[in-house]
Structure formats: C-alpha cells, structure tokens
C-alpha cells in the first residue's frame, strides 16, 4: 500500500484558502499513482491527477478538521494513504453602521444596522447596540 507525505499549515481562518502539499509517495511495489483523492474533513472531496499543491476553502470555523488522502494506482484505491489535522478558526463578523453625524438632545437618532461581513457561514441572531451614553438595546434583526 502506498504512503503519501502531506504538508500544510496546522490552522486556517474560515473563508481563507488553505494550501495542502501532496508530497512524495512511497510504495514498496512498482505501482504508479494516477489519482489523488483528498477528503478535506468538512464533507467535501476533490480529485487530482497529479501531486503538488492543492487548495481548499473551509467555509466555517471554529472546527477541527482532519484531511485524509486516498491514492489510486494499478492495484486499486488505497484509503488513508496520508492524513493531516488542522484547526479552522472563526473570523469575527463586522457590521456597517450608518447614521447622522449629529443629533439634537432629546430628538430621535436613527441608526442603520447595515451589512454584516463574515467570511464564514455564520448567521447573526442578535445585534447589541451600546449607544455610548450608558444605555444598551438588543435587536433581533438589522436594518434601520
């Protein structure tokens, strides 16, 4: 059964590109690898007809992931020829805020809770607004 050397960072941020090096294959027999099957550990699989660097984007963190590589040669598919563990980190979301620069005391100030930017597939469920005057309000949706 062939063995493959894998190399890559031990962590990556969600939404960022992770690079995996499909390295040297060691096989006691005179077999030729024709297909590299990478199971990224998040339910996705990619197939490659050569070694070298391959990339993947993990959609969401924070999560531990184990990459497992299978090799295909004349003798068939060899699962678990190589494995590598990494951590996918969460990235904090940011929000665009809009509102007037000034407001009269006692008058209603309108704040727009705008677009949330998050490289991960996270869903904001609560918006907590600290108005800067000692009061805080919590909302279940964005908008105006």
């Amino acid at each position, binding site marked *: 059964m062939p063995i493959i050397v894998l190399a890559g960072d031990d962590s990556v941020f969600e939404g960022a590109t992770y690079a995996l090096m499909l390295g040297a294959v060691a096989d006691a027999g005179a077999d030729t690898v024709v297909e590299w099957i990478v199971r990224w550990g998040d339910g996705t699989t990619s197939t490659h007809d050569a070694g070298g660097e391959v990339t993947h984007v993990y959609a969401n*963190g*924070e999560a531990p992931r184990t990459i497992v590589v299978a090799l295909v040669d004349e003798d068939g598919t060899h699962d678990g020829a190589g494995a590598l563990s990494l951590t996918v980190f*969460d990235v*904090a*979301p*940011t*929000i*665009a*805020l*809009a*509102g*007037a*620069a*000034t*407001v*009269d*005391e*006692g*008058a*209603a*100030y*309108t*704040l*727009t*809770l705008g677009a*949330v930017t*998050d490289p*991960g597939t*996270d*869903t*904001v*469920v*609560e*918006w*907590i*607004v*600290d*108005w*800067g*005057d000692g*009061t805080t*309000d919590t*909302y279940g949706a964005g*908008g*105006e």
Partner: protein
Amino acid sequence: MTHAYADGAASATITVALVDEDGLHAAAGTLGVTVLNVAPTLVLAGAATVDEGGVYTLTLGPVTDPGADTVVEWIRGLGRRHDGRVRRGGDVTHAYADGAATATITVALVDEDGLHSAAGTLGVTVVNVAPTSCSRVRRPSTRVASTR
C-alpha cells in the same frame, strides 16, 4: 433603530456587538455621533399695557428644554441692559419710569450649558399718565409770612 440622547452637548460612540453561532463578537462596528445641546425656551406672561410709574408684574413661566438641563438663573433685560437676575421662576415686578413707550422684555436663561439669550420675549406698552390738576397747586409761600 432609534435612540434619544437625553442631554448634550456631548459626543458618543455607538458600539455594536453581534451574536452568532460562534458566540458574542464585541465591537463589530462603531460610529461616532455628536449630541447637540438645544437652547431652552421660556414662557413669559404679563399684561399688554402698564401705566408709567405703575408696577408691572411679569410671570417667568415654564421652561421647555428637550435636554436634561436645569435652569439656575433668569436674567431679565428691558431693552437696554440686564437689570434683573433671579434664581427661580415666578412673578417679578418692574416699574417703567416713563411712557408713552413700547418695551420688549427679554429673558435669558442660564443652565449647565451656559447662557441662552432671548429664551423668551414679551412686548409691553407703557402708557403715559396725564398729570393731575392737584399736582399743580402751589403751596403757600412761606416768604409771605416772614417778618423780615
């Protein structure tokens, strides 16, 4: 989302935190806002006319201020200069020396945010009073009685 800032002048920084599957993310967004002070206004009440030399009563009525400010001084001007300062509202009096004239009463207010001129104004007509005949009666001369 709306909010009323109770008092200005002040600067505030709005900070928004977001909660998602991964927990609480503080300071996901910030926005600065300047809260402006609004000058107070004052209700003045008093008669439309007053006789010259008579006592005119001016009522320093309710103060309206959208902010959380407290008036500490009422300054009454009568068109020429500030001639009356009081520490509370209510009735104040003044005698207009001469008519016929029109006067505009102007009241300024002082609170934590400073002096607010012309917070209230009120016009008043000072009516001339005709001299009465008895004021023209001459007193008997004492010289006549003099023995010198």
